[in-house]
Each structure stands twice: as C-alpha cells, then as structure tokens.
C-alpha cells in the first residue's frame, strides 16, 4: 500500500483533544461475586448495556462533567449506538463505533472537524455470564473469516491462530516457551498490584510451564480471561479540558494501518507477523507525537494472547524482528523495568475488555499516584492495537 498519509495534516492534531474522564466496572469483585456468589457461565443477570451504563456514570463522575455536556457518542462493538443513546437520554451531534483505539481516533477527527466537543466512548460486555464462544462449533459466521473457515479440518479459535503465529516465531527465531511465559508472569505480577483485577494470585514461570496446553504451543496462561465488564472514556476538545476535576491527559498521536490482503489464508500473520501494518502506524505516531520508542515510559498492547506483545514490540521497533523473546525476559516489561507493559494486568490478568481497559490504565499512569504499580515519572504512554492485522496506535502524554 502506498505510504500516502499526510504528515503535515496529521501534525497539527497533536494535543488537540484530551482524555478528561475514565470509568470501569468492578472486574474482580464482579468476577468473584458479591458474598461469594459468582455469576456462572450462562447465568446472565445483566447485559452489555448494564455494564456500559455503570462505566459511563463513573467516567462522568471522574471528569466532573454532566451527562448534558456530552454531544458525541462512540460505542464498542457489542452495543447499538442508537439504543445506547436512547438508554442514556442522549441526542448526540455525532456518533461512531468500533474498538477503543478506533473510537479515540474517530472522536479526535470529529472534534477537530467541529462536529462536536465532548465525546463519550462506551463499551460493555457480559461475555462470561452470557457464555460467549470464541471457538468451536458455535462459531460459524460473522467476524473474521479465518476464525471459522477451516472448521472442516478441525482448525478453530482465535487462540489457535495465535498458536500458529508463535510456532512460526519459534521455528524462525528459536523463541522459547519460557520467553513467552515471561509475558504472562509479568502481567500477573501487575494484576496483583491492581485491586480491581480479576486475577490476584501470583504466577511463577514454573506455574506457567506446568499449566496445560490449549492449542500447543500456547498454554492456559497465554490466553486472556473471559469476564464481564464495562469501560467508558470521556474525550474533550483540549481547550475545554482545562480546569476540570482531573488533569487532562493529551492525545498526542493517532495512527492506523491495516493488513488485510490474504488475511483468511493467514499470509500476513505467518509470513509478516503483521509488521507491515506495525511499521505503517509507527511512521505516523512517533513523528506526530515527536517521540521515539525510547521515550515511551509505559506501554500497552492488545493482549487477547501473550503473543501479541512479541509482535508489537518487534513491529514498532522496541527491539529487532525476532528478538522479542529475549526482550521480554528479566523484568524488562515489568513495573520498575525498562518498558513496563500492560501495567493493569492486561487482558490476560486484569480484564478482557477487548483493549478498552488499557486506555484508563494509561490515563491513570499519566495522572500519577497509582500506588505500587505507578511507573515513576511517566510522561509518555503508548497503546498498540494489533488485532489480526488491523493495527492502530495512540500516544498519550501528560499535560504540561
């Protein structure tokens, strides 16, 4: 694809919008259940909208804004924007939908176009209590074709596709299971410093290695959680973001590049590790924010599987291609290390909010005062969305 984005038009958008409020549901408490009565699989008592509503109310409270200040709405993929607006009594002047990074990019564009000033980005997912399937016979259509196309041969599940990715990485670069395991161990360590995380029990590399394979070479702890939750983020025009309840966190760069050609036959996944998309986004976000990977204080990546981190660290230039394995070892990606990654525990150990939970965590890291998991002096935070080649990234910075 031609390198056709216009750096000169992108550059002035730096710091034009800010995150002024974030809200999340009680992932851990909801998972364990009040009074020890956890909601089991298929025992839904709430729906996606309930969880989204709770998160929205908390994000508004966090920002100090009122519901009537909202004039734009972006909803995650489980929600209908129309129904959500009705439910929350909103008549937005603009609305969008998508994954978390996509919604931040869309909101940045809409605000800069002058269509609206204050956008609520809202997500909710009752996937555990509603027993959502991400593989097997119940997945027969919709979504990404490679997730169900090869069922006649017995290939199914997103996990198996990332297992193929990791097996290829092992074959080409000699990456070891212990190296991959360092990712799950680090994220769990972070979760244990986060009272809202679902997982609170420490995980050692020995525990990791002893856990059963699911789709070999991936083991149980390479897989994300399935839990219920909601997330909301309030994005506002930067000049209107001062003097609110929280110090604003700036959206300093946005980037987007997709790698869909031959995706069903798994070519970009196995022949490129999606690095073409990563490089395309890196070329946008680092110049726009005026930083390099070396300036990133705290990093988060989409982590439905541990493998995602290897891909994005290599693709964005934190290490050379094929060197992700050694890079993630010896505490480098832990709080206190060179590049703390997924400091809330991520989707592996905090909450599987399909990356929505990564945004509040990065915002909190830049606000500061996060207790034991605070990355000292954090000023630049990067989120990388790397899902089956649809890559986006946001760079957040601390406001001056």
């Amino acid at each position, binding site marked *: 694809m031609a390198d056709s984005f216009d750096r000169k038009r992108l550059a002035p958008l730096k710091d034009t919008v800010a995150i002024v409020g974030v809200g999340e549901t009680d992932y851990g408490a909801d998972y364990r259940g009040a009074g020890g009565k956890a909601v089991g699989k298929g025992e839904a008592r709430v729906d996606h909208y309930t969880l989204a509503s709770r998160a929205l109310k908390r994000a508004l409270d966090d920002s100090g804004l009122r519901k009537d200040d909202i004039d734009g709405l972006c909803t995650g993929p489980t929600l209908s924007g129309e129904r959500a607006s009705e439910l929350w009594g909103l008549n937005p002047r603009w609305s969008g939908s998508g994954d978390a990074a996509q919604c931040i990019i869309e909101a940045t564009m809409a605000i800069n176009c002058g269509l609206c000033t204050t956008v609520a980005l809202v997500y909710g997912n009752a996937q555990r209590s509603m027993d959502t399937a991400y593989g097997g016979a119940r997945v027969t259509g919709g979504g990404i*074709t490679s997730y169900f196309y090869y069922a006649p041969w017995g290939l199914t599940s997103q996990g198996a596709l990332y297992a193929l990715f990791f097996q290829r990485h092992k074959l080409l670069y000699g990456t070891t299971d212990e190296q991959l395991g360092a990712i799950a161990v680090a994220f769990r360590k972070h979760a244990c410093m986060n009272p809202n995380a679902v997982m609170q029990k420490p995980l050692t590399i020995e525990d990791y290695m002893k856990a059963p394979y699911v789709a070999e070479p991936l083991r149980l702890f390479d897989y994300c959680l399935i839990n219920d939750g909601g997330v909301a983020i309030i994005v506002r025009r930067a000049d209107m973001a001062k003097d609110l309840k929280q110090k604003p966190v700036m959206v300093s760069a946005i980037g987007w590049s997709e790698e869909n050609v031959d995706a069903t036959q798994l070519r970009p996944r196995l022949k490129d590790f999606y690095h073409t998309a990563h490089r395309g986004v890196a070329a946008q976000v680092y110049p726009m924010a005026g930083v390099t990977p070396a300036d990133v204080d705290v990093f988060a990546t989409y982590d439905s599987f541990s493998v995602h981190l290897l891909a994005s660290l290599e693709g964005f230039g934190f290490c050379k291609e094929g060197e992700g394995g050694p890079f993630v070892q010896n505490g480098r990606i832990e709080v206190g290390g060179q590049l703390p990654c997924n400091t809330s525990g991520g989707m592996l150990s905090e909450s599987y909010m399909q990356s929505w939970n990564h945004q509040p965590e990065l915002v909190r890291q830049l606000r500061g005062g996060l207790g034991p998991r605070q990355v000292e002096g954090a000023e630049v935070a990067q989120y990388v969305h790397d899902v089956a080649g649809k890559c986006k990234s946001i760079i957040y910075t601390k406001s001056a």
Partner: protein
Amino acid sequence: MATPRPIRSMDPYAEQFWAYTQKKEFRLQKCSDCGKFRWPPGPTCDKCLSDEAEWTAVAGRGKVLSWTTFRRKYFEEYPAPHTTIVLELDEGPLFVSYPVDVEVAKLSEGMVLSLRWTDGQDKFGEYNLPVFGPPSA
C-alpha cells in the same frame, strides 16, 4: 457413510471448490486476466479486480509453514489431540489442512508435503477433504 466433519462455510464459490473435491480434483481459482491464484474462493481477483477466473488444477504440493496441536476438544468430530498445519502451496496461496502419515514430532519448517484425500460430510452433503502427507516415493 462418509466421515462427519464440522460444517463448511458455504457460498457460491466455496460450493464450486467442494464440488470438484467430489471427483478428487484439487482446483483453485486462477485469475483469467492476471493469472493470480486465490484462496479462499471468491468473486474477484484481489490483484486486478477481474471477476473472470478458471478453476485450475494445482499440483497439491506445499511446504510446511506452521502447525498447532489442539490439546482440548473444540469439535466432537476432532477429539484431542488434533494437529492442524499451514502449507505454502507451490502456486502461492497458503492452505490450512491437517497432516496424515507423519508424526507431529517429525514436522519441520519447509518440509514438503503432498495432497491426499479423505472423505467428509456435513449438512451440505458428502465431499472429499484435501489433507497432506509425505510425498510417495
């Protein structure tokens, strides 16, 4: 009775691919204008946007790129452990299948495997499934 397998994703182009398998013919669409082979089957050449294509017999030979072994049962028809592979066919496309007549521990990067047929059926009817094993000497 043919072996029951998890359901195929069916559309007008997949239908034609599977119809050829009933005659044990392994054919992929080849663009009539630019010659690019495509998989999975579909209406358009992604290189030149032509909708003219011929179902062209391919060699049924490919090199192993990767594999995964399911240690947990996802389909009744495939008890664990079940190993699936991805091959790069001589004609270009990558092809997902499963290995036969070769131990998983013996699989290696770039290993050449060739086409075998095994039977299958689902609600759309009976067909033959292309699987891959060591080339016969």
